């Protein structure tokens, strides 16, 4: 193994690992760490010493409910009493989990603190010589009506010099009495253990894949180059795989968050999660799912498929591509640092000002913002890269109107992304500076306008929604067309609809802010424009439906997901039409109706589309077929449980259940709130959510097992026409021979006739084909 140390790249890895080790302690202590002493409120001084022995007498063996006991507190040892003239001898602090403490009548040596714990009197020099000049005290404790209690006793043995110094000693005693409740794992513990488990499994899979690739060379000397090849790769297929794996991993992480807070919401008034934990969990669920799961998975598909489809040998800027990927885990590191310290961002994925810059927001929000800045950088770099690739590297013969629709959807998505994301980036920088050096962009006292953040966020946020959903449109176009053996109906109108969505997406964002105090004129304008988005989306749905006409539909797993997408996405699109009507939005805004709507679009749209894509392109990427039986099972379980999860949320929203709340209130005699059935619906949603999560395990199993044992895939297993099917499965590197790029052929006579006004304008702009440019 040590021979590998000579290689400079290994030194690089070791340097990074060392740095991580150095960083780790400061990372965990990021929030104002609570020591054990402060934890239970003792203001003990000196150091903890075994020589001091606390004693707590008077606790019964069998506890009688509601009975009052006299407790004797004392200690021995330590510096106390060494000086016979000392003014103070020691103190104590007794904390009890249940029941109540009270001083014995007439005893002025003991006092009860506001939090119910007991301490000696005479702190800070007052009444010195009563409570402070003791080594034993008495206090009364009234037992709770039911159950037992826990005691924590701190005693402080002091030398009496009147100074809280290192010469004093303290110690702690824990005691319990009566029946103890069953220990409940906190949500955070569950989450942390699950993550560790996931990392272990993923690590195991990596080792296993490595082993299975070449069982003979299962040694460190082979493993290091193999690993370093993955860490340094700039090949679009490998980077795509990395993107996809990291996206899929975070899909699991985001799912875990969802499952944990679904447990919290299963019954009203539940206390599985504390409010702090709940707030962090829904924040991280949103952030993880959109920025660390959906976007990388889309980027993974785009990386893999776009160069293959447009007949390029790689992306235009391969190293930039790798940089865009590696910024994702680097950002995840920052975003997740907070949550493991218990001070994770609790600001919602929208991070609305001024809460995000207020002192009540957790300190982890700063890191959340910093991580998001890196994700913005990643998206910008990826956007530039893809735009350049589309504009310059299409195969000979492939005009704009011959690009496969998946590529078109990625083109429009990246264009929207890198035009819109700078607004978000600037907003984040403003918030970061507000939270660190003290600029006042969102400080209301200095004239800051909280709505500015909402504007900057949604100027990005609304296009972002289309950025994630458009690639799914592209996948569905490819899958439906190939499965039905028909060219996609109305190719041109599909492209124009995509472009139309792309432009409209920028002028509608105000509908997220109808109730926010935004300029009323802008609310009115965006109400009108938002309605229009339905038109291009409708064109796409009807075109997909008509694509099947006259075809010969072959039912594969990817076809099933595509058909499922058509149903769920249409539902999600229709429920979206309820919001631009302001009078309706005033009721539905921030309720579960919104949650239902965007999960129908995000899960039923994006995730279903991407699942379809996984089944469709997996053979191309790995050279092996996925198991169809497992695939159908995945679809059936997934589709049904998915609808069970999100359909009832519409109803909950109309009944007025607000989102982002730790609990919900059921109607009582005193006031009207949610109907009693809401609790049942929530329970059903939680149960179905577990089924939906389980359905994804089928996919994971299928992917892993098929990678090793699946049937060998032919070059064009489904009979598609686009250029990725020209290559072998898996494709070679470079993906298409750069010296012999494929030339797009045409089934019909390709009419180059009159280019039209627009075409002539484009030609006028371009460098003449024969002109100049010889260097």
């Amino acid at each position, binding site marked *: 193994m040590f021979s590998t140390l000579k290689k400079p790249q290994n030194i690089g890895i070791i340097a990074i690992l060392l740095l991580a080790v150095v960083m780790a302690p400061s990372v965990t202590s990021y929030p104002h760490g609570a020591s054990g002493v402060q934890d239970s409120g003792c203001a003990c001084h000196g150091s903890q010493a075994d020589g001091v022995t606390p004693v707590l007498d008077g606790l019964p063996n069998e506890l009688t409910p509601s009975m009052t006991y006299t407790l004797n507190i004392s200690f021995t040892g330590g510096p106390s009493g060494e000086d016979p003239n000392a003014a103070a001898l020691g103190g104590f602090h007794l904390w009890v989990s249940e029941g109540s403490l009270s001083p014995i009548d007439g005893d002025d040596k003991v006092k009860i603190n506001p939090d119910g714990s007991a301490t000696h009197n005479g702190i800070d020099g007052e009444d010195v010589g009563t409570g402070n000049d003791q080594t034993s005290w008495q206090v009364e404790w009234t037992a709770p009506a039911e159950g037992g209690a826990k005691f924590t006793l701190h005693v402080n043995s002091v030398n009496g010099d009147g100074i809280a110094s290192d010469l004093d000693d303290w110690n702690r005693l824990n005691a319990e009495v009566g029946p103890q409740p069953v220990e409940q794992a906190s949500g955070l513990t569950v989450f942390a253990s699950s993550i560790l488990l996931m990392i272990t499994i993923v690590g195991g899979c990596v080792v296993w894949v490595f082993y299975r690739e070449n069982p003979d060379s299962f040694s460190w000397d082979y493993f290091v180059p193999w690993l370093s090849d993955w860490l340094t790769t700039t090949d679009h297929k490998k980077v795509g795989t990395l993107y996809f794996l990291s996206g899929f991993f975070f899909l699991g992480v985001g799912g875990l968050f969802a499952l944990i807070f679904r447990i919290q919401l299963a019954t009203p008034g539940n206390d599985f999660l504390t409010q702090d934990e709940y707030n962090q969990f829904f924040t991280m669920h949103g952030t993880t799912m959109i920025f660390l799961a959906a976007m990388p998975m889309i980027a993974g598909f785009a990386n893999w498929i776009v160069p293959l489809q447009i007949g390029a040998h790689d992306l235009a800027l391969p190293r930039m591509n790798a940089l865009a990927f590696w910024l994702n885990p680097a950002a995840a590191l920052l975003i997740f640092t907070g949550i493991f310290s218990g001070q994770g961002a609790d600001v919602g994925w929208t991070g609305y000002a001024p809460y995000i810059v207020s002192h009540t927001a957790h300190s982890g929000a700063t890191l959340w913002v910093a991580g998001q800045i890196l994700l913005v950088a990643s998206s910008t770099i990826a956007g530039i890269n893809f735009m350049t690739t589309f504009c310059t590297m299409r195969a000979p013969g492939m005009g704009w109107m011959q690009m496969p629709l998946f590529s078109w959807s990625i083109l429009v998505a990246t264009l929207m992304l890198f*035009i*819109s994301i700078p*607004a978000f980036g600037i907003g984040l920088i403003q918030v970061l500076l507000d939270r660190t050096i003290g600029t006042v962009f969102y400080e209301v006292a200095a004239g800051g*306008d909280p*709505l*500015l953040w909402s*504007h*900057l966020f949604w*100027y990005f946020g609304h296009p972002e929604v289309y950025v994630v959903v458009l690639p799914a449109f592209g996948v569905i176009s490819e899958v439906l067309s190939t499965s039905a053996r028909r060219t996609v109906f109305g190719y041109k109108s599909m492209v124009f609809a995509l472009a139309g969505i792309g*432009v409209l997406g*920028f*002028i509608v*964002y*105000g509908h997220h802010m109808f109730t*926010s*105090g*935004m*300029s*009323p*004129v*802008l*609310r*009115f304008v965006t109400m009108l424009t938002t309605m229009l988005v339905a038109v291009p989306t409708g064109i796409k749905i009807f075109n997909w439906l008509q694509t099947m006409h006259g075809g010969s539909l072959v039912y594969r797993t990817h076809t099933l997901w595509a058909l499922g997408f058509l149903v769920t996405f249409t539902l999600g699109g229709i429920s979206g039409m309820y919001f631009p009507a302001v009078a309706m939005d005033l009721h539905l805004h921030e309720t579960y109706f919104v949650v239902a709507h965007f999960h129908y679009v995000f899960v039923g749209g994006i995730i279903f589309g991407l699942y379809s894509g996984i089944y469709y392109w997996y053979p191309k990427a790995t050279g092996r077929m996925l198991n169809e039986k497992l695939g159908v099972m995945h679809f059936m379980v997934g589709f049904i449980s998915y609808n069970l999860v999100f359909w009832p949320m519409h109803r909950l929203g109309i009944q007025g259940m607000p989102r982002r709340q730790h609990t919900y209130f059921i109607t009582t005699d005193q006031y009207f709130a949610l109907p009693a059935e809401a609790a049942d619906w929530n329970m059903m949603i939680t149960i179905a959510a577990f089924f939906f999560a389980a359905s994804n395990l089928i996919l994971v199993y299928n992917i892993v097992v098929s990678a090793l044992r699946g049937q060998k895939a032919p070059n064009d297993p489904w009979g598609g026409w686009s250029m990725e099917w020209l290559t072998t499965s898996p494709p070679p590197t470079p993906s298409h021979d750069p010296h012999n790029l494929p030339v797009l052929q045409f089934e019909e006579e390709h009419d180059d006739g009159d280019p039209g006004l627009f075409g002539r304008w484009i030609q*006028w*702009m*371009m*460098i*003449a084909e024969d*002109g*100049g*440019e010889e*260097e």
Partner: protein
Amino acid sequence: MGEHGHHTILGFDRYAFNFWVLMIFTAIEVVAVALTFSMEGTVSMNTVVFILVAVGVVKGVGIAAIFMHLQGDPDSRVLTATALFPVFFIVIMVLFIGLTHPDAADTLPDWCRPGFYNLE
């Protein structure tokens, strides 16, 4: 890119010409502001703003057209179109974000209300 197109403007080297234009126009900016300083009250602020905007446009066009080769090269036209592409989105951003201010919903102006058109 090759050195195509016009190398000169009015007989000067185009880069040098542009350079001096930029220098002179910047001087005009500074002088305009200095005037408000030295002759307080004689030059209105509106005049200054007008001068600043006009000069800014001239300087911007000069830099873009000549220094950034958006004029005269074979690829100039298509790159100009590229450079102008974000204009729509910038206009939307400035209109929606830069020039609106929050207010209560009941201050919605009449022309946005159906009652204004005797509807409903």
